[in-house]
């Protein structure tokens, strides 16, 4: 931290170490707003596609609780991972390693938000969705962050369950239950997570290596990672079509899921075959970028189809 390559100077870092240095923006950054937005979006889809109705005010309350719960997970993750965040270029500018927010402040902030979001969810929506929200936060902190992340290359495979739970929470907010449909939504994100993160890890291997995180490219090498990405992509394509077979996705969804699934496998194949130099890095970056678009579009179409269905029923 002797220069400005990380976006701040040493004097900035040292002068900010005292208690109470962070502003509102720093605390907002602790909540990982970009991750939070994807979590809220997938939860919204679970909420909309679930059978039954929920008063709009209660639906908004549920989404706020899910957003705050996701933010709590982010803050608690940044509290625990401050040491490795400081080493990795991608995360070095986060509020805790930068010294804007102390680790204690991040822990308190995350704990208050976690407890507040779960209790509010239970009181205002229902206790099944509150329990799932608590499970999500707990899984992300204790199972992924504290246990798996620094110990096994399967960290994001198992830990991915935390990121896959939000649509299930949205579904439970409406129905008060966990059912096959919500499990299918869970599975799509669960199987999508490994190729998404391994594509990133392929071109960030040195970063992970320096921080001592046993991501698959670090422990097994890039070629094994490429094989794993391809296998998961081949699993993801049919899983993405599963909503069609249980009546949750319509024709538009079927077409889009097929096209996107084929494109995902094609990009994974490109990662598999291009193994050297800039071409290899480009292929991994392309797959990483596309994987975000894949999930976004798949869930957006489910949302649109169900909103249109609702309008048709109301119109009839």
């Amino acid at each position, binding site marked *: 931290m002797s220069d400005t390559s990380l976006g701040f100077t040493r004097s900035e870092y040292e002068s900010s170490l*005292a208690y*109470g240095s962070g502003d*509102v923006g720093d*605390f907002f950054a602790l909540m990982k707003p970009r991750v939070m937005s994807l979590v809220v979006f997938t939860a919204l889809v679970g909420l909309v596609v679930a059978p039954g109705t929920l008063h709009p005010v*209660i639906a908004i309350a549920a989404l*706020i609780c899910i957003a705050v719960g996701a933010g709590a997970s982010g803050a608690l993750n940044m509290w625990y991972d401050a040491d490795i965040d400081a080493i990795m270029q991608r995360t070095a500018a986060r509020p805790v390693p930068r010294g804007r927010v102390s680790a204690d402040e991040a822990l308190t902030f995350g704990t208050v938000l976690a407890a507040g979001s779960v209790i*509010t969810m239970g009181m*205002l929506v229902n206790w099944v969705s509150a329990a799932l929200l608590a499970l999500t936060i707990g899984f992300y902190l204790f199972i992924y962050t504290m246990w798996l992340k620094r110990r096994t290359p399967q960290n994001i495979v198992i830990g991915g369950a935390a990121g896959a739970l939000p649509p299930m929470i949205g579904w439970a907010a409406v129905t008060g239950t966990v059912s096959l449909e919500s499990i299918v939504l869970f599975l799509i994100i669960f199987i999508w997570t490994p190729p998404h993160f391994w594509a990133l890890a392929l071109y960030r291997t040195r970063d992970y290596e320096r921080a001592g995180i046993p991501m698959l490219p670090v422990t097994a090498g890039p070629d094994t990672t490429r094989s794993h990405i391809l296998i998961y992509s081949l699993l993801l394509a049919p899983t993405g079509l599963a909503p069609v077979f249980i009546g949750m996705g319509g024709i538009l969804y079927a077409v889009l899921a097929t096209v996107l699934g084929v494109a995902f496998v094609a990009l994974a194949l490109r990662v598999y075959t291009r193994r050297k130099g800039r071409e290899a890095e480009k292929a991994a970056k392309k797959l990483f970028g596309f994987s975000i678009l894949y999930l976004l579009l798949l869930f957006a179409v489910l949302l649109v189809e169900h909103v249109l269905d609702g309008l048709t029923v109301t119109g009839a």
Partner: protein
Amino acid sequence: MQLSEAQKKRRRSRSIAIAWALAAMAALFFVVTMVRLGANVMNRPF
């Protein structure tokens, strides 16, 4: 511990943000209670 002017300013902005968050939470609880009770909010013994 002596806080600098900049730190005092940031602490004030954090306090205001906490106040807004608490007010929003109280409003949320109130509105959801009204939604859940509906017309029954008037139905009580005098």
